[in-house]
C-alpha cells in the first residue's frame, strides 16, 4: 500500500470522508479555543456536563422531526443553554457551587433525554444520538458546523479581553465594571454552540472530546493563550485526520477513533512536552541566571 493509498486516497475517492474531514477541521477551529478557555477557567468538567445536557433537546428534536440534524441541533442548543443559565442562577442564589448545580442539572437532562429517545426510536437511533455519525454528515450539516466555527472565532475575538481578565483576576474586572457575568454567559453560549456542532459528528457523549483533550495538550506545549489556541485547534484537526484514516482502513467506528487519536496525542504530550515526564527524567543543566 503506497503512502497515497494510505493517507490521501480515502479522501480523494469518497465524498463522505472529505466531508467528515472538513467537519473535523471546523470542529477543531471552534472547539479548540473554547476548550482552552474552559480549562483556564477551571471548568473542564462543566463542558462534559453541558454536553450531556444537550441530549434531551436533541431528543425532542428527534421526536418531532426524526433523524434531522437541524431539528436536533436546535433542540440541543435550547436545552444546553437552559441548563447553563439555570446552573448559573442556582450557583448565584444558593450555597451550591457551580459544579454541583451543573451536575444535578445534567444528570436530570441525561435521564430525560434517554427516556425521550427510547419512547419513540430504536436503540440504534439512541446509539446515533449518543455517539454521533460523522460519516453521515451531509452538505447542510457541514454548513452548520462551519458557520458555528466561524461565529465562535468572531465572538471570541470580541469578548477575548474581558474573558481573559475575568479568568485571571475576577475582582479586578468587577472593580473596573467589566461586566464579567455578561461575558461569562456569552462564553457559555459558545460552549453549548460548539457542543451542538460536535454532537452532530461525535454524539453527545464524545462531543466534548475534541474540546478538552486538545485543550489539555495545548496547556502542556504552549505558554501563551494564543499559542494554546493554535496548538489546540491543530491537534483537534490532526486527530480528525488520523482518526478518520484509521477508522477507514481498520473498519472501526470513526468517532471513537478520532477521540482515541486525540488521547494518544495527549499521552505522547505527557511524556514529551516541555513540562512532561521525559524532561523530568533527563533534566538539562541549569542556566547561569
Amino acid at each position: 500500500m503506497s503512502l497515497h493509498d494510505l493517507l490521501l486516497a480515502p479522501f480523494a475517492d469518497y465524498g463522505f470522508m472529505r466531508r467528515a474531514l472538513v467537519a473535523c477541521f471546523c470542529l477543531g477551529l471552534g472547539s479548540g479555543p473554547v476548550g482552552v478557555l474552559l480549562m483556564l477557567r477551571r471548568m473542564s468538567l462543566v463542558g462534559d456536563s453541558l454536553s450531556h445536557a444537550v441530549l434531551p433537546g436533541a431528543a425532542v428534536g428527534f421526536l418531532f422531526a426524526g433523524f434531522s440534524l437541524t431539528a436536533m441541533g436546535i433542540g440541543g442548543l435550547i436545552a444546553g443553554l437552559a441548563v447553563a443559565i439555570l446552573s448559573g442562577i442556582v450557583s448565584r442564589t444558593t450555597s451550591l457551587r457551580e459544579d454541583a448545580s451543573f451536575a444535578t442539572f445534567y444528570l436530570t437532562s441525561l435521564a430525560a433525554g434517554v427516556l425521550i429517545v427510547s419512547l419513540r426510536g430504536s436503540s440504534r437511533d439512541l446509539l446515533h444520538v449518543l455517539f454521533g455519525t460523522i460519516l453521515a454528515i451531509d452538505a447542510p450539516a457541514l454548513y452548520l458546523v462551519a458557520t458555528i466555527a466561524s461565529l465562535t472565532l468572531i465572538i471570541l475575538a470580541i469578548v477575548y479581553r474581558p474573558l481573559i481578565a475575568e479568568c485571571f483576576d475576577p475582582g479586578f474586572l468587577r472593580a473596573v465594571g467589566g461586566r464579567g457575568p455578561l461575558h461569562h454567559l456569552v462564553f457559555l453560549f459558545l460552549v453549548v454552540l460548539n457542543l451542538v456542532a460536535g454532537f452532530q459528528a461525535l454524539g453527545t457523549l464524545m462531543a466534548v472530546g475534541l474540546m478538552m483533550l486538545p485543550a489539555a495538550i495545548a496547556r502542556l506545549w504552549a505558554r501563551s493563550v494564543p499559542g494554546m489556541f493554535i496548538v489546540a485547534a491543530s491537534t483537534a484537526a490532526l486527530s480528525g485526520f488520523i482518526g478518520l484514516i484509521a477508522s477507514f482502513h481498520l473498519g472501526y467506528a470513526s468517532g471513537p477513533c478520532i477521540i482515541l487519536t486525540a488521547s494518544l496525542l495527549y499521552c505522547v504530550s505527557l511524556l514529551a512536552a516541555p513540562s512532561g515526564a521525559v524532561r523530568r527524567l533527563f533534566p538539562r543543566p541549569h542556566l547561569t541566571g
Partner: protein
Amino acid sequence: MNNTDPAAAEAGGRLISLSNVTVAYDRRPAVHHLSGSFLPGSMTAIAGPNGAGKSTLVKALMNQLPVVEGHIDHAELSSRDFGYLPQAAEIDRSFPLSVGDTVMLGGWHVVGAFRGITAAITAKAREALSAVGLEGFERRPIGSLSAGQFQRVLFARLLLQDARVILLDEPFTAIDARTTRDLMDILLRWHRDGRTIIAVLHDFEQVRAHFPETLLIAREPIGWGPTSSVMTAENLLKARAMAENWDDFAEVCHRPGNKAA
C-alpha cells in the same frame, strides 16, 4: 474619631461617607454599625485582628458586597475613580499571561473591553514597570515571578489605572522588607499627589510610621481618626478582646444607628 467633625468634613467635602453601615454574612455581622468618612486626599490604614471585618469593609466600599443596614455614600465617584488591589490569594498566578499584558489591564478605563492597545498605553506600562523596579520584565510570564515581584506588577497596574481612590487589601503580606519599602514609597507618592488611600494592614509599626489616619476595627468600630490617638494601648487591647466566640443563639440586633462611633 474627630474626622466626623461636621466643620472639617464640610470644608474638605467628604469623599466617601459611611452611616451606620453593617455588612453581614448569613445574618452574622462582619462589620457592625460603622459610621464615619474618608476625606479627599486622606491616607487611612484599616487595622484590626483577623476576622475583624477589614477585607469585608473594603469589599463593601468597592460595592462588591451588599450592605444590610445603613449606607455608603460615594456619589461623586464612579467605578473608574477606584483602584483596587485585592488580597493576593484571589488572583490566579499560574495564568499564562505576560507581565506587560497584566500591567496594561490597568488601562481598562481607556481601552475598555474592545478598543485596541495604543502605543501610548504600551509606553505608560513600560514606565509603570520601571517605576516599580521591574524594567524589561514585559515579556516574562507572570507564573515565573516571585510573590514580591508579582506584587510590584500589581502596583504597576494600579499606577496605570491612575485612580483617585486607591484601596489595598493587605498589600504587604508575605512581602520582604525591601519590596515593602519600595511599594510604601509609591503609596506615599500617591498621597502627595492628593489621592485618597485606604489600606488594610497588619503591621502596626508600619501604620504608626506612615499612615496619618487609622480606622481600628474589631467587627465593631473601635477608633477612627489620627493614628496616634487611635492606636493607643487601651484601644489595641479592646480590639484584641474582640468576641471571637460564636453565639449560636444570637438575637436580632436592635441597636439604632450610633452615628458617633
